[in-house]
């Protein structure tokens, strides 16, 4: 007796349209494109910084274009979406048990958000934004 194996057809390029949960997963996945591109921009910035004051000023001036502003907006959305989903996942990724009880998940994620806000404010302060 032969049994045919169950083959569930999954369209390799459009599977994520099947469920909103998959769409959110893919939305999170594509944030890495903008973050990766932004990291390349950071490496270019380091090269310009190493090349001297004129090169660095040129780099800062080069940022002031419409394309750059659009790219920064996309990178900003991607970075915040990554951060929020990452912090929301921490309570699942590293549940904390004290004695018999688990620490409430929202407390773990909330602590990450709090540290994030403080760290960001410190960086903005050190960079002279306010």
């Amino acid at each position, binding site marked *: 007796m032969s049994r045919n194996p169950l083959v569930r057809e999954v369209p*390799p*390029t459009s599977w*994520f349209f099947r469920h909103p949960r998959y769409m959110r997963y*893919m939305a999170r*996945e*594509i944030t*890495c*494109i903008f*973050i*990766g591109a*932004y*990291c*390349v*921009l*950071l*490496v270019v*910035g*380091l*090269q310009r*910084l*190493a090349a001297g*004051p004129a090169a*660095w*000023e040129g780099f*800062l001036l080069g*940022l*002031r*274009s419409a394309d*750059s*502003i659009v790219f*920064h*907006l996309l*990178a*900003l959305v991607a*970075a*915040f979406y*990554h*951060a929020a989903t*990452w*912090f929301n996942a921490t309570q699942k990724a590293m549940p904390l048990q004290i004695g018999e009880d688990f620490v409430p998940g929202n407390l773990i994620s909330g602590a*990450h958000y709090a*540290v*994030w806000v403080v*760290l*960001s404010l410190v*960086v*903005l302060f*050190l*960079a*002279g*934004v306010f």
Partner: protein
Amino acid sequence: MAKSHKPVVWFPFAAGGTVIAFCIPVIVVLTFLAALGHVPAGLSYEKMHAFAASGLGKLIIFGVVSLSLWSSAHRLRCTCYDFGLRADTLAATILYVAAITGSLAAAVFLLRI
């Protein structure tokens, strides 16, 4: 216990995900301000050069850039697969080599400062 090379890929990915979550949004805000023409005082050549010239500054910049690059490369590899690109070995090789090249370039530029 089976030996696997996965932790080598996974550890910098997880560390990079954390670094991206905590550090990249505020860094994007800083260069976005510069893009809008309001360059923060801390992004002047003197300030940035002084920061990148210090040992701690080099360590922070290299850590943020290299871990973020690695994490992005790893996630881009998964994204390629999820979008139907089944040539995983090729995608992994190209992306990881790119991330390592970027990190090495960052290290070279930092050592020149």
